[in-house]
């Protein structure tokens, strides 16, 4: 109780998470996102061509055409915008991750609430030399932090750093 004789000052003087400088993720991730979107676009175009060529259903074909023309340019533009919003930061006692252009989400996970940390790489990641760092908590999927597009080396170093913090906290 004695800590809180003047709470407005006390609360205001605490470290502010919104003042933290975020580090960006690797540019290679943009290439990966573009590639994935491009593959999806190819699939959609192939489906459209098949529909069109065999004259299957005019309504469906035109809806799909409109969808492709509207959705994909938006998606490519959005991918570009989102790339810049990815950012993570380590503080002494927690890790922060932000993402999203239209809705910018910042998730803060205190180290003493981390359950475990893992690194995953898919085929594209291997080719682009990047990794995804996953930080799991007990709070369900919304509570977990998944940082994509970290250079392999950085992901490993982060994981090691977190592991040190975890064992330090566990005791």
């Amino acid at each position: 109780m004695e800590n809180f004789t003047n709470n407005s000052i006390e609360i205001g003087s605490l470290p502010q998470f919104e003042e933290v400088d975020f580090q960006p993720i690797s540019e290679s991730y943009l290439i990966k996102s573009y590639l994935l979107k491009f593959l999806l676009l190819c699939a959609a175009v192939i489906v459209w061509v098949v529909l069109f060529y065999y004259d299957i259903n005019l309504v469906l074909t035109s809806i799909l055409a409109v969808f492709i023309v509207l959705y994909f340019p938006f998606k490519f533009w959005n991918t570009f915008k989102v790339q810049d919003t990815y950012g993570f930061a380590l503080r002494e006692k927690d890790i922060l991750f932000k993402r999203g252009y239209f809705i910018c989400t910042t998730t803060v996970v205190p180290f003493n609430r981390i359950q475990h940390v893992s690194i995953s790489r898919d085929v594209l990641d291997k080719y682009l030399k990047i990794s995804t760092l996953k930080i799991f908590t007990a709070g369900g999927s919304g509570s977990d932090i998944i940082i994509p597009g970290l250079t392999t080396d950085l992901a490993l170093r982060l994981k090691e750093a977190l592991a040190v913090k975890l064992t330090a906290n566990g005791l």
Partner: protein
Amino acid sequence: MDSNLFAVPQRQSKIGILLIFLTRIFTLLKGFWAILAYFLFTKFSMSTLIYMLLGLALISILALIYSVVYYKNFLFHIDALKQEFVVEKGVFTKEKIAIPFDRIQQVYIKHSILQRILNVDSFVIETAGSKGEEIKIQAISNEDANRLLEILLKEKNNYSENIPDSEFTEKTDKVPYWTHKISFITLLKIGISTNYLRGLVLIVGFFATIYNEISTLSVEHSETIKTYLDEIPAPMESISIFLIIAFIVLLMSILITVAEVFIKYFNLQLTQKKDSLQLEMGIKTHTKVSLQPRRVQLLQIITNPVQKWLNLYQVRISLANTEDKLQKSKIKIPGLDESTVAKMNSFLFTDQLSNFKESFSPNKILVVRNLIIALIPVLASYFIVTFMDILTFKTWVILAMIYTVIVIIWQIFFFKSLALILSEDFLFKKYGVWNKTEERIEIYKIQSISILQPLWYKKKNLINIVFHTAGGDVSFSAVNKSILPYVNYMFYKIESDARSWM
């Protein structure tokens, strides 16, 4: 030490390939048996049979390759230096999972019939958290499994503090502090005063299926039914018939709700012992739960005006407890009076004193947003009506107007009910138009916090906040950024509190 045994990354038992292969095939067959059966029974000929066999052979080969790769890539070992259990796995994407010993909640061995035949075991390591975070080694030889279990249990126990066994404590505190029982009358009251929406939905669903059955079975009779229906609508009569039907439906949904309440909560008894609250209830499935304060992650107190008048409150508790998967879900305790709720509160949460209490309400823009979302069905129904020609335009307008008015009133009341209250150790959220809910979290039990800012909130300085707990999320929308110092205070609370969250 023993742990040297598993110091080097190693594979599963060789026979594991067969096990993985068979389980793969089995799951694939389970997914596709309907298609197989369809082809066999409807288009049976020599050629389809040959194609099918070829297909099966191909799938088998693919599954075999998959199994071998899976087996080759699956490696596990104990990292004695970092005090971790490490698993590497994956066919298409490789994954490396490391579980520090102190995060391990439970380790156990299990085997299916197939595994018993092959003389291997499954080895499962559970950590607290959502389902995906358990590690399972599918095929490990019997002795290896036992050795690994021994090592991990030893390491795990090194970390966990000496928590008294639940059986142990039960002996020491046989004498209950207080007991709350629910009488027959109270159950009846609960049944009548809970909303019948569920019962109503059940009945509507029931009649819809019956109607569906009849209309498909007797298409030829439908003409006579139609003419019969056409004869009825003299306006007065149709209204009275409608009222009678409505009354019957209402009565039935009340009956169903009451019956449900009786089956679920019969003989409900809440007893406080020294370290825990004991809950017993139910006919069909007899529930017996022990509520320990530190396992409680999220508490909800729900009442509606009628129930409040009858002094009835429902408490819902989310527990985190990996020892028993069932207990991870919410526990509902209905029919508690105000004083019992207060007693529960003071038992489950100790430090209730607070030097500050700050209340936040959402910005008015939230009403606009919710109204837009709620009115989308109106627009959608307009298109359906004009295209499908089900209703006349006039009736559509009337229905849409009624819906809109109700929605607007509802949303305004809902907006007014929303409040987020922060105190030194607790976070409360209040909401609800008819069913008024109060959610309560102990700040140090929060797992993480997400702060969301949509682009269109930036100018208005608004944010959405989601508090993640092991018992579910609590979110609050369109709140002013002036809450941020308190969010920082919460981080301070979580990070400086040494208590374990479960």
